[in-house]
């Protein structure tokens, strides 16, 4: 946030910065609850999953603004906004349909499942965005790095949830790994805002694993 503010990019990447602001608030809240009630308390459990759900929705909207940046020349903001809301509503309804059949503690499980599903939807959307960047030959270095770092973050979190579903006994091992990986996103964005000038350009086709 400080990097974006000092480089006069706060408003341009408003939702990204709002997400980071929410992240800071939620981390402070989590720390206070952790210190007061402990790791195994129900207060920490509820706060962690509810705040995670809110953060995921914020990150999802932040991703949609990246779509707007990439498709800005096509004047597709209206369609992006509509698609974003439609997909979010679809994910929310799908999650509700799944949770309603199998759980008594509906709201808490719903919050957990929603963020889990949104991480995967976010991953797929970031993948599609990366494909669009390659197709449209988008060259803005900062935008490319922001999208790629978001892709790395979504992949790690989605893989973590999948591992936890497959092997619940690994939950204790995976949670610290995810916490460490979570610091990657703000640092990568800080690097992109601070280090890369506005006019820096890249050739994304040369960055792809299979050169195009």
């Amino acid at each position, binding site marked *: 946030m400080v990097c974006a503010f000092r480089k006069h990019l706060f408003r341009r990447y408003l939702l990204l910065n709002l997400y980071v602001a929410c992240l800071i608030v939620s981390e402070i809240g989590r720390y206070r609850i952790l210190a007061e009630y402990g790791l195994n308390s129900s207060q920490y459990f509820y706060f962690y999953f509810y705040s995670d759900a809110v953060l995921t929705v914020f990150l999802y909207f932040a991703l949609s603004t990246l779509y707007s940046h990439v498709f800005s020349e096509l004047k597709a903001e209206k369609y992006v906004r509509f698609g974003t809301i439609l997909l979010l509503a679809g994910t929310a309804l799908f999650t509700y349909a799944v949770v309603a059949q199998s759980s008594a503690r509906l709201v808490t499980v719903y919050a957990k499942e929603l963020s889990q599903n949104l991480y995967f939807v976010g991953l797929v959307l970031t993948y599609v965005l*990366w494909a669009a960047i390659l197709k449209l030959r988008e060259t803005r270095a900062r935008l490319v790095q922001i999208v*790629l770092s978001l892709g790395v973050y979504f992949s790690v979190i989605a893989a973590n949830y999948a*591992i936890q*579903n*497959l092997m619940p006994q690994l939950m204790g091992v995976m949670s610290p790994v995810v916490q460490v990986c979570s610091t990657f996103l703000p*640092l990568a964005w800080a690097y992109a805002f601070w280090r890369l000038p506005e006019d820096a350009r890249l050739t994304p086709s040369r*960055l*792809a694993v299979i050169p195009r």
Partner: protein
Amino acid sequence: MMAALILAFSLAALLQFFISYCRSLIAACAKQPLSAEVQDVTGIKSSATGDDFARVLQLLQLCPDRPEDRNGIQAIGFYFRMLGFLRATVARIIPSVRAWTELERGNCTYFAAVTLDRRIAFSRDMFAQQMES
């Protein structure tokens, strides 16, 4: 079954995004010239080889750390180790992969040298500010 599919997709996407992210970091630094003193210290002029990476990292550790660079250098360090693994396995069979890994390892070294250059400039600025105050 569904979780296994999601895991496979996530890991494949992670690999792609990570490699592309590292290459974007390297590409953003590739055109930055090195200062004369970093060229002298590292022996790198315009292009670098992967064999110098460990030495440049050691030099980097001698300079004061900067949070915004830490993430990049850690990612590139991990990417370099991945390339090392590829070089020791697949590249032994396919010569074109060997040439590619050598090129990428050299680019990783150049990225580390550019980061070293930045850290030296940062340390010098800090020192100058302290002297002024």
